[in-house]
């Protein structure tokens, strides 16, 4: 299919968020924002456009303010709109929930505005960032009008209609579309012009809006408090406005249709004009349902139809009834939300009631009462496919249709789910599709976005692209789903039959299921370094079989070779892109190549002509390496199955984790899952991700046994062990060992072992290894994994078996701490993450009694995002207990956990004292005097008590048994990022610190919202560019430590692990032992800073050396000792702050884009450093009364 070139048209290619933001921006004046997935990019775009000076419809530049939370956004928007300025915002999920209080006000006061929501699940038994309607459904009672968009085009169009209708009706609008599926799907759409937007706006309504503003020029008061005599009547005064909304929306839609030809109704009907079975629903699923109904009607003679709800609130019964075909006999209402305990989900209830009203009040406009059932689908972005639509219609066809059903999962507990025919699919006429499998870091997604753009620009084809990521922050699998065709692509579900499959990483073959979705006769392209003659034999049996059965065309390319030879290192994405164009016939290859080169020029132009030339050379060289492989008639390899999980793994891991790792999670039934959101820990050890191509290798001779490599390893993938030399008798060949050097070294051996399949290859350990041999080689150096994998696996298996020497648990030096078992391992954090070592330290210091409350953010994602869990337990089965509540409430949540464990500890102590005669008075007295450090002794005593108590009758004894383990006090740590501590959770953090409770707070300060992609927070420093700070942050970073110190009774410290390990360790231990609140702020260099994370620890050091991040401690206990309460732990700045800043892209990028502003902000940054240092030094000196040197003889 060689397509004809594109004609002049308003057609563009965008994702849903950008389509919406473009309209919202142009129709607004002041915008307040806060990041939350999947809405964030709308806010980011508005911030960028504002920074660039892009005008709105009135040729003015909208101003954007970032707030500390969505609650803050809603409050600001309330003020902005009451002040008479046009406003909007963007949010989802928990963010929308935080806006609810103000939404009532805004609606009650009839104040126009629009909230655009990329609808997302709400955290319940677990958090889900994915799409459904749980969030918007929680707003149906606020008084906001609610408009639903079902596609990228509609999202743009209904955004415009919302902004116009809110002005005309005075009722505020919530405009929503499906998170990810619509917000992040790239699709073709017709751009809506400024002229059209202006035309939609009712000038009179706008004028009145400005007139109504709260102003001293025409003073009024708002927000009065009303009494029983008035509130009710005044509340009813809004009714007439709500009555008008449907008419106004329809009129605006009609006007829009006149201008654009795209016509919408309050309820749109698709399908057979005399349909008997109808589905009612809203959101992206509408397109799937409508296309499936059309296909079934055409191919199977059915009479099916779909009603798409657009204006959900106010719900207009009449318009709804009129949208139904008169012939309808039964209806299934699909809700993308769950309301446990209700008679039915919200849309189901609305439809039920509407039908009831229709038969009673509207003169029986339907000839009979249709049968009605309801069900749930698509929760948390569960796929909703044509086969599932068919299952719903089949259910309607059955004699006893299931009510309250679910579709898309297997519910084997309450049996409410519908079966669906997995093989059913509908062909999309005149369309081609392509699937690409890549790694998060290999540029596959970027290249595919570019491919879609090229096809969109070069041809008159309609395009669609959707990208699926796994939840790992590094080395995660990406799947790109591309479709294009002569007609608009209405298929908001993953590709089910692809003409082309590209495998961009050789290690996926046989491990990732790539061929079940390839069409008969399709093309399969593999990037592999295996010789073309050898490739076939290297494929596992199942892959060979699929290729033969489906009669695929198999092509291979050694893209790494092409990349290497053209100086591109391991950047293979454009090479693979060229191959795709050559193998598909969507564009003449020459044309495609020249367009790829144009975009290379655009993307890399700023990086200089050399980079551009290198990329172009790779593009030119690619096709010579592309080879087709001849397919034998039969598979040549014997079947072999992959062992995802070792046989020795616990049952749960085999039953649940295994399928999740194999990509089969969708097939797990309801019964497989633990209820109540509980998940077992210690599962990351079974994942064996093998994402590093090179791993560190230890050189026993050169090593000085300082253990730094282990201390800083972000993934706990390097571990030292001291053991008896005699153990070595059974060592496998190649196992490395050396004599231990240290106290009591006789007969002791030492090994540093790398976990080869858990290492992510970040290189941080190599960078900081202090030991080099005569040849300049360090004691740890990277080597290619493949040749050494088997050896390392064997060594590791032996290493894990060796009995280690017990180490004194009271000593915690930088050297010895690494010898303790980490109880936080192999997380999904970024390769080189600098936050994870802090958490690992907590686990090594206090792991067996550690309670962690974790704010939502990076640390909650790598800490608890399935498929696996990195927190694990020691040989006694104890380990960190971890939970995430929300983003904003983490300090309060952690306080609650602490109060609860403290209550139980105190109760246990009291009961113990009450029962001392029965248990043994001496032992009880002894127990109560055990120092808090001596936990082993306490645990031993507890076991004795347990045996005795089991024999003692009575309720006190029973109660003591219930609380007995709490006789060892738990250590509560409240962990979160700067977005939480400085912004959204600050109020709660401040309060919790002020309670005096014995909780410990660890702030992982990356100076941006890392998890949502690097938005500015109040921790972002002067001069840094971040998202939401496109112009470069002007104001200084908030000094959280100073604020906390002002209370006097709080232990406060700033740490930076790479700058001073021992201080970090000392601080964590002191914070923990302080019987009151502690706040520890840890510096965490982040990928979002535009740095190479293998230098993370060096960045920490540079931050400290320049005075950018002074190390200090404030320990209220020292008031009674010789030591000062406040002390500096770092030296006076030894380098200018510019030396630190200009090594990081977040600062440098501003220098490139706006050198004048950059140098101004740099000057300010230096002034801030100087004045802070002077202040801290003065504080430190004030604490040292004998620091005066009058008496040293020098005057």
């Amino acid at each position, binding site marked *: 299919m060689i397509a004809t070139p594109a004609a002049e048209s308003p057609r563009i290619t965008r994702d849903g968020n950008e389509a919406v933001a473009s309209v919202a921006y142009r129709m607004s004046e002041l915008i307040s924002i806060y990041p939350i997935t999947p809405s964030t990019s709308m806010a980011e775009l508005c911030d960028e456009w504002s920074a660039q000076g892009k005008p709105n419809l009135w040729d003015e530049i909208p101003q954007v303010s970032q707030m500390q939370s969505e609650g803050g956004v809603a409050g600001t928007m309330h003020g902005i709109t009451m002040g008479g300025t046009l406003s909007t915002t963007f949010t989802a999920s928990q963010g929308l929930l935080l806006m609810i209080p103000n939404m009532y006000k805004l609606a009650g006061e009839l104040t126009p505005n629009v909230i655009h929501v990329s609808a997302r699940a709400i955290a319940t038994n677990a958090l889900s960032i994915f799409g459904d309607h749980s969030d918007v459904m929680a707003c149906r009672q606020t008084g906001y009008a609610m408009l639903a968009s079902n596609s990228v085009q509609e999202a743009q169009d209904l955004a415009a209609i919302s902004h116009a209708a809110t002005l005309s009706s005075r009722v505020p609008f919530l405009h929503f579309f499906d998170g990810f599926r619509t917000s992040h799907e790239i699709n073709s759409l017709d751009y809506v012009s400024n002229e059209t937007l202006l035309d939609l706006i009712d000038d009179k309504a706008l004028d009145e809006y400005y007139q109504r503003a709260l102003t001293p020029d025409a003073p009024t008061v708002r927000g009065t408090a009303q009494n029983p005599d008035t509130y009710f009547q005044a509340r009813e005064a809004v009714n007439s406005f709500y009555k008008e909304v449907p008419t106004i929306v329809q009129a605006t839609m009609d006007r829009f249709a006149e201008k654009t030809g795209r016509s919408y109704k309050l309820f749109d009907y698709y399908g057979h004009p005399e349909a008997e079975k109808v589905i009612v629903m809203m959101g992206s699923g509408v397109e799937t349902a409508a296309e499936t109904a059309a296909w079934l009607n055409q191919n199977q003679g059915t009479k099916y139809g779909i009603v798409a709800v657009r204006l959900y609130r106010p719900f207009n019964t009449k318009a709804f009834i009129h949208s139904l075909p008169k012939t309808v006999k039964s209806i299934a209402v699909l809700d993308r939300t769950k309301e446990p305990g209700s008679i039915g989900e919200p849309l189901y209830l609305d439809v039920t009631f509407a039908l009831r009203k229709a038969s009673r009040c509207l003169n029986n406009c339907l000839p009979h009462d249709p049968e009605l059932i309801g069900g749930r689908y698509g929760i948390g972005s569960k796929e909703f496919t044509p086969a599932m639509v068919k299952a719903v219609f089949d259910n309607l066809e059955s004699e006893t249709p299931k009510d309250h059903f679910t579709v898309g999962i297997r519910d084997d507990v309450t049996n409410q789910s519908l079966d669906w025919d997995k093989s059913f699919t509908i062909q999309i006429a005149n369309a081609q599709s392509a699937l690409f499998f890549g790694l998060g870091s290999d540029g596959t997604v970027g290249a595919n976005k570019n491919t879609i753009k090229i096809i969109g620009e070069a041809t008159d084809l309609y395009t669609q692209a959707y990208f699926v990521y796994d939840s790992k922050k590094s080395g995660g699998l990406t799947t790109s789903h591309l479709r294009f065709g002569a007609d608009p692509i209405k298929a908001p579900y993953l590709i089910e039959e692809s003409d082309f499959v590209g495998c961009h990483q050789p290690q996926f073959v046989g491990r990732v299921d790539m061929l079940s979705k390839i069409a008969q006769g399709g093309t399969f392209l593999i990037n592999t370094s295996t010789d073309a003659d050898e490739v076939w034999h290297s494929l596992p049996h199942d892959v060979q079989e699929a290729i033969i059965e489906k009669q695929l065309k198999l092509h291979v390319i050694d893209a790494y070779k092409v990349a290497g030879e053209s100086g591109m290192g391991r950047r293979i994405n454009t090479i693979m892109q060229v191959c795709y164009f050559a193998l598909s016939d969507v564009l003449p290859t020459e044309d495609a190549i020249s367009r790829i080169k144009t975009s290379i020029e655009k993307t890399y132009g700023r990086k200089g002509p050399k980079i551009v030339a290198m990329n172009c050379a790779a593009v030119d060289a690619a096709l010579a390496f592309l080879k087709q492989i001849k397919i034998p008639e039969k598979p040549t390899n014997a079947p072999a199955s992959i062992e995802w999980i070792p046989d020795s793994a616990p049952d749960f891991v085999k039953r649940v984790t295994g399928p999740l790792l194999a990509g089969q999670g969708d097939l797990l039934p309801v019964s497989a899952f633990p209820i109540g959101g509980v998940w077992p820990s210690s599962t990351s050890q079974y994942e064996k991700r093998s994402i590093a191509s090179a791993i560190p290798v230890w050189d026993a001779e050169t090593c*000085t*046994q*300082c253990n730094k490599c282990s201390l800083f390893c972000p993934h706990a993938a390097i571990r030292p062990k001291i053991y008896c030399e005699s153990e070595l008798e059974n060592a496998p060949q190649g196992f490395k060992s050396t004599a231990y*050097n*240290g*106290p009591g070294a006789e007969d002791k051996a030492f090994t540093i072992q790398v976990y080869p399949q858990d290492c992510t290859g970040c290189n941080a350990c190599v960078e900081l290894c*202090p*030991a080099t041999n005569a040849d300049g080689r360090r004691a740890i150096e990277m080597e290619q994994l493949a040749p050494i994998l088997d050896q390392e696996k064997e060594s590791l298996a032996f290493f894990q078996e060796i009995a280690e020497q017990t180490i004194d648990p009271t*000593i*915690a*030096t930088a*050297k*010895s701490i690494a010898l303790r078992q980490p109880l936080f391992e192999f997380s999904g954090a970024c390769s080189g993450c600098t936050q994870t070592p802090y958490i690992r330290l907590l686990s090594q210091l206090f792991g067996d009694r550690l309670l962690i409350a974790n704010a939502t953010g990076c640390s909650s994602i790598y800490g608890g995002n399935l498929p696996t869990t990195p927190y694990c337990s020691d040989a006694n089965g104890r380990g960190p207990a971890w939970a995430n509540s929300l983003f904003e409430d983490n300090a309060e949540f952690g306080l609650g956990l602490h109060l609860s464990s403290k209550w139980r500890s105190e109760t246990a102590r009291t009961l113990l004292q009450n029962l001392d005669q029965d248990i043994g008075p001496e032992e009880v007295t002894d127990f109560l005097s055990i120092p808090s450090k001596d936990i082993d002794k306490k645990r031993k005593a507890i076991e004795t008590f347990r045996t005795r108590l089991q024999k003692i009758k009575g309720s006190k004894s029973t109660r003591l048994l219930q609380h007995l383990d709490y006789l060892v006090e738990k250590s509560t740590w409240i962990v979160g990022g700067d977005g939480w501590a400085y912004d959204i959770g600050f109020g709660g953090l401040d309060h919790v610190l002020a309670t005096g409770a014995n909780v410990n707070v660890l702030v992982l300060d990356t100076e941006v919202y890392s998890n949502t992609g690097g938005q500015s927070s109040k921790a972002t420093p002067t001069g840094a560019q971040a998202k939401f700070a496109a112009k470069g942050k002007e104001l200084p970073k908030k000094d959280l430590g100073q604020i906390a110190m002002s209370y006097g009774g709080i232990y406060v410290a700033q740490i930076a692990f790479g700058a*001073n*390990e*021992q201080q970090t360790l*000392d601080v964590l231990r002191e914070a923990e032992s302080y019987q009151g609140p502690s706040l520890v702020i840890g510096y965490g260099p982040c990928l979002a800073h535009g740095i190479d994370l293998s230098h993370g620890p060096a960045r920490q*050091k540079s931050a400290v*050396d320049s005075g950018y991040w002074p190390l200090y401690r404030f320990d209220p206990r020292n008031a009674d000792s010789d*030591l*000062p309460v406040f*002390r*500096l*732990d*770092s*030296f*006076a700045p*030894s380098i200018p702050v510019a030396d630190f800043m200009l090594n990081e892209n977040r600062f440098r990028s501003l220098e490139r884009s706006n050198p004048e502003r950059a140098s101004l902000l740099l000057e300010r940054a230096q002034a801030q450093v100087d004045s802070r240092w002077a202040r801290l030094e003065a504080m430190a000196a004030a604490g*040292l009364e*004998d*620091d005066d*040197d009058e*008496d*040293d*003889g*020098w005057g």
Partner: protein
Amino acid sequence: MKITVIYGTETGNCKGLAAKVAKKAAKNGVDIDVIDLATYDIDQLASLEEPLLIIISTWDDGAPPPKCEATFNKLMEREEPLPDLRYTVLALGDTEYPLFCECGRKIDAQLAELGATRLLERTDLGAEFMVTYIGWSKRFWKMLAGVFGKAA
């Protein structure tokens, strides 16, 4: 008035203390050379006229900071006496390690062995060195006041 400070460091603590000494020297109007032991030629000790302060940390169970290993070994192997050298040692370490401030101890003993004059008893500073440094500093400058005839 002049002094020389030689520091041996791995993570910068001794260097930082050397900088503090330098600041104080400037205040007191004393000339000062601050030198990294890693790059120092031990033979020059013989001709050093002014008082010498050595600030050195201990690593890896008694070993010197890895960067200074070669120079340290050379000093320890030295046999020619240093009768004219006047010195004092400030040792850094951590009491949680069994061989507390071992490296400073060794240097102090070796210089004494080679006949150099100890101007002030060695001081061993632990993890609290940022605080305990102050007491040492006072003693050190009092001693220098004596050496330079500034004593009141």
